């Protein structure tokens, strides 16, 4: 272990003295900040456009709903310039003034569930969608007019939820409580999830540098000199630990720059939701993910004479961490779906899938979590063993890439 730590220290020192690494260390968060500013810049310009082209909405109504519409306009920040009007519907055939709309709301239109609307040709494309915000107060007025009691109205107006899987069978009041709870603080799970996600991706991608590092010894023909002082497994472990530490440094720099910036620029309650127990569990998943990919990288890295000359097999292995992104869409859209469940059990996709699911799901499927963590831990053990065997022979094979057949032979040795 002492020798492994010496190797780890060396890898750390060597990289920290490397200009490319140091520049990369600061450039990644800088790029994030730059994109944030670019985004703000564009959204600001959009806002300006919006301000310049706010809809003027003339309302002709006789049921006393104008104040409610004003309130909704403010609450939902619709940006309408609301005006009352007495112009009859018969006068209006088309609206010449751009960004203008007329709404005719009366008892008859309410009865027929059809609100006459006239919009100028040039209008905010979001306007038809924004109009839907008026549906609920209008239905409420209609319900009150029909003589229903307040309790009946409440029951009628309660939104119907489509609930899948685990919440099935729960009483509606419980569902309501859950969703209310989630709506109140969605950051409670999102922040630890995003934090662990950053750690996972950062150390996994730093771990990809192990590829280069493992073949570096061969390229520079120093493997035999190093192995005259320590065992191949000590060298391998040292590299894994060294690059793990480098990854953590990268995460630390990343967070040290981005965290104050995010707190300053947004209202997201990061700190309150970061130091919670679930962060520890999420970070643990991230670390396991690193160990799994690092052991694969270090083993396969030792079979290459140089990263640039990686063969098909090595190239495919390099792509393994990206496999997780292929299923990220289905997992996010349906965290309890079949893709998400199967992804939880496949070693290469398990860490990120598990992380996303635990971030999005209201209640955790504990059995699936336990099986998934067991799959990851078992994979780490198996890959470490295989990597050890491949590394031992591969590291001394100078000047050529090992073929899959040769690698298979080393594994069986």
């Amino acid at each position, binding site marked *: 272990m002492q*020798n492994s730590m*010496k190797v780890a220290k*060396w890898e750390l*020192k*060597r990289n920290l*003295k*490397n200009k490319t690494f140091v520049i990369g260390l600061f450039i990644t968060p800088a790029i994030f900040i730059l994109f944030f500013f670019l985004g703000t810049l564009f959204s600001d310009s959009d806002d300006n456009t919006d301000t310049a082209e706010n809809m003027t909405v003339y309302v002709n109504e006789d049921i006393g709903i104008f104040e409610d519409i004003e309130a909704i306009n403010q609450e939902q920040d619709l940006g309408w310039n609301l005006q009352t009007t007495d112009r009859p519907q018969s006068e209006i055939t088309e609206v010449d003034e751009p960004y203008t709309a007329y709404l005719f709301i009366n008892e008859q239109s309410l009865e027929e569930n059809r609100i006459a609307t006239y919009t100028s040709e040039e209008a905010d494309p979001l306007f038809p969608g924004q109009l839907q915000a008026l549906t609920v107060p209008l239905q409420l007025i209609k319900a009150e007019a029909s003589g229903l009691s307040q309790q009946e109205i409440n029951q009628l107006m309660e939104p119907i939820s489509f609930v899948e899987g685990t919440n099935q069978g729960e009483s509606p009041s419980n569902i309501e409580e859950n969703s209310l709870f989630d709506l109140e603080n969605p950051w409670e799970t999102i922040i630890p999830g995003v934090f662990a996600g950053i750690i996972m991706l950062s150390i996994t991608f730093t771990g990809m540098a192990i590829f280069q590092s493992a073949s*570096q010894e061969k390229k*520079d*023909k*120093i493997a*035999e*000199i*190093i*192995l*005259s*002082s*320590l*065992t191949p497994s000590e060298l391998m472990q040292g590299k894994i630990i060294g690059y793990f530490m480098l990854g953590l440094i990268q995460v630390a720099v990343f967070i040290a720059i981005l965290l104050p910036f995010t707190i300053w620029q947004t209202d997201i309650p990061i700190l309150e939701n970061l130091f919670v127990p679930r962060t520890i569990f999420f970070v643990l998943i991230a670390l396991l993910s690193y160990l799994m990919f690092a052991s694969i990288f270090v083993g396969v890295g030792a079979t290459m004479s140089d990263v640039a000359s990686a063969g098909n097999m090595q190239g495919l292995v390099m792509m393994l961490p990206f496999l997780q992104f292929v299923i990220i869409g289905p997992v996010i859209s349906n965290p309890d779906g079949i893709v998400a469940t199967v992804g939880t059990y496949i070693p290469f996709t398990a860490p990120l899938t598990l992380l996303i699911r635990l971030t999005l799901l209201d209640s955790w499927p504990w059995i699936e979590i336990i099986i998934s963590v067991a799959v990851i831990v078992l994979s780490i053990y198996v890959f470490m063993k295989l990597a050890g065997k491949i590394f031992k022979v591969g590291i*001394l094979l*100078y000047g050529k890439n090992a073929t899959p057949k040769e690698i298979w032979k080393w594994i069986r040795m």
Partner: protein
Amino acid sequence: MNTLLTVENLKKSFKDKEALKGISFEVYRGEIMAILGPNGAGKSTTIRNIMGIMYPDSGEIHFHQQTGEGIPKSKIGYLPEERGLYKDVKIMDILLYLADLKDYPLNKAKERILMYLKKFDLEGKENTSVEELSKGMSQKVQFIGSILHEPELLILDEPFSGLDPVSQEIFKEEIASLAANGTAILLSSHQMNLVEQMCDRVFMMQHGEKVIYGTLDDVKKQYANFKCILHGENPPALLEKIPEVDRMEHHRGRSVLHLSKGVIPHQWLKQLPNELDVQELHINRISLHEIFIDIATDKHLVSQEGGS
């Protein structure tokens, strides 16, 4: 003799090929022992087994009364045949790393690095990046890396390859000085003239087996007969009259006469015919180089004639 390293009946196979067929030898403290043989004879495999980089199928290696994984690697220095250094690091950094891996105190290592850099004409280069060095300079840094931690056993696999004569001389002197100070040195080289000048004993192998083992003098006595090089215009018929000659090569007035085993040179000289034209005459033993060529080409002329 104080034995430092013992190799006993070492065997190693790759696939169906036996690379080492049970070789045994010892290396003593303060001596330079050469391990010789043509390419593919099994030298590097033997060395890698001693270093624990490969593991023998059978046989034992003892160093400091330890065997296998118990062998203290920090007391061994090693310069492999296929060697290099990390390119993007400073000389001082890489040498300190190598010293650290050998558990050598870093402050002492730093002093020795500066001392050796000066000795090898690399003074002031400690902060130079390895990639800026010439091949010869890089070889010197690798050599410093192998001796920096004051090893008791130093294994050098082809230390002179790629070196100019001046650098060869510097290496030769340093190796001799280390041996004089008690370091046991196991040296593999194809430069037979240098081996002949430096080594106390030789272990020559071919096809994974021992062919010759002993002190340089003993080996020459045992395996090498005398040969006479004669310059002069002599017809072949006259040369054939010379007694106790096993084999003869004649070319443009230069004749090489390989003498029979047991010939006593000064008595043999008296038997030369009076009419022989002698412009120049040398009598010496067959060189290590010739023994090596003989073994490498599988002629076995030396052993046949030498009767070993």
